[in-house]
C-alpha cells in the first residue's frame, strides 16, 4: 500500500494540562480542529501511524544527541514523568518490522539512529491522546532542541525518504508531525507568540511552498518564532513526505496561556485528497 495521510499539529502541553486556562474563544478552535483531525485520520483507514516529534530531553542528552532517531521497539510507554500534561501513562504498540524497513530506507538519504527503548513524551502522547488513536505507532524523534539540530532542508529530505519507503510498504501508513509553531517554552518570554511568522509558515505549508523555509536562517527563526520555533522541523518533514501537495489549515490560534501559536493542518495524500 502506501502513505494514506499526512498531518501536522501542535502539541503544547497546556492543551491537556491546562485546558481551561485560555479563553474558550482561543482554546475551542484547537479542540475542534483536533476532532476534525481525528475524523480525517479515521477516514484514511491507516494500519500504522508514524509520528514525527521533537526531542524534549526525554531520551537524549548532549553527550549524544542524534539529529533523527526512529523507535524500532515492539512497544513504547508514555508519557514520561511530565507533571504538566495530565495524560494517563499507557503502552503504545510499535511496529518493529516497518520501523526497521523505514530505518533502512531513510538511511539511504539521511543519517539516523535507531532506538529499541524510546520514551514517549507529550510530543507523541498528547496528539495520540486527543486523536484517541489505538494504532500501532512508530516514533521518529527529531532534534529541535539543542546541540546541533539538522539543517531544515535535511528534515525535508527525511520526509522525502519516509515517503519513498512507505510507498513500497504493503500496509496503509499515516504520518503525523507534531510541535510548534512559535513559542518561547518555559522561558521569561513565555506567552509571546510570533503570529506573523506562524501565518507565513502555515501559508507555505498548506500551499506546497515549503521550499521557501528550507534555508531559513537560525537567528531569524529564533527571533521570530522563539527557540520553540525550531520544531517546524517536524512540519517540514511532513511537507517533504507530502511532496508539494496543497492542503488545508484546520486551525491556527495564538494561545498565550498555552505559550504557543497552535495549529492543526492536513496535507492530502492519495485517497484523503479532496
Amino acid at each position: 500500500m502506501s502513505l494514506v495521510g499526512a498531518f501536522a499539529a501542535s502539541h503544547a502541553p497546556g492543551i491537556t494540562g491546562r485546558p481551561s486556562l485560555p479563553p474558550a474563544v482561543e482554546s475551542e478552535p484547537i479542540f475542534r480542529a483536533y476532532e476534525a483531525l481525528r475524523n480525517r485520520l479515521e477516514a484514511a483507514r491507516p494500519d500504522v501511524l508514524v509520528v514525527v516529534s521533537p526531542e524534549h530531553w526525554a531520551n537524549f542528552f548532549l553527550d549524544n544527541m542524534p539529529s533523527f532517531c526512529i523507535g524500532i521497539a515492539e512497544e513504547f510507554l508514555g508519557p514520561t514523568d511530565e507533571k504538566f500534561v495530565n495524560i494517563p501513562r499507557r503502552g503504545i504498540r510499535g511496529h518493529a518490522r516497518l520501523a526497521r524497513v523505514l530505518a533502512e530506507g531513510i538511511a539511504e538519504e539521511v543519517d539516523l539512529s535507531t532506538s529499541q527503548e524510546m520514551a514517549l513524551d507529550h510530543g507523541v502522547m498528547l496528539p495520540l491522546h486527543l486523536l484517541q488513536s489505538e494504532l500501532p505507532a512508530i516514533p521518529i524523534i527529531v532534534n529541535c532542541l539543542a546541540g546541533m539540530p539538522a539543517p531544515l532542508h535535511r528534515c525535508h529530505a527525511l520526509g522525502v525518504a519516509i515517503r519513498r519507503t512507505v510507498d513500497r510498504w504493503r500496509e496503509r501508513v499515516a504520518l503525523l508531525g507534531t510541535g510548534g509553531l512559535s513559542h518561547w517554552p518555559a522561558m521569561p518570554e513565555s506567552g509571546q507568540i510570533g503570529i506573523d511568522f506562524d501565518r507565513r509558515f502555515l501559508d507555505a505549508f498548506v500551499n506546497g511552498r515549503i521550499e521557501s523555509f528550507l534555508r531559513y536562517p537560525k537567528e531569524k527563526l529564533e527571533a521570530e518564532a522563539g527557540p520553540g520555533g525550531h520544531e517546524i522541523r517536524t512540519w517540514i518533514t511532513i511537507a517533504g513526505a507530502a511532496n508539494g501537495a496543497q492542503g488545508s489549515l484546520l486551525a491556527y490560534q495564538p494561545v498565550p496561556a498555552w505559550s504557543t501559536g497552535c495549529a492543526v493542518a492536513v496535507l492530502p495524500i492519495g485517497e484523503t485528497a479532496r
Partner: protein
Amino acid sequence: MSLYEVQKLLFHVNREPKVLNRFLGERETLIAEYRLTQEEQCALLETDFRSLYEMGVHSLLLGPLAATLGVSFPDYLAILRGNQT
C-alpha cells in the same frame, strides 16, 4: 563554568526517579558527584531557577523540574522574570 555538568545533573534528576529521590533527600551528596563551580552548586542547592536560567541552563530542563517540585507554572515564570512575591 561547567554548564554541561549542571544540565547533565538536571537531565538525570528529571529522567531517573532514583536520582530525583536523591535530589530531594540528599542533595549535597548528589551535587558533589558532578564537576560544578561553587556558584552552580549554590544555585542547585537552593533550586534557584532564575540563576540557573541566567547561567544558560536550557528552559526545558528547568520547567519540568519546577512542575515536579510543585511550583506552579505562573510562579515558575515569575521567578524567572525576577518578580516573584
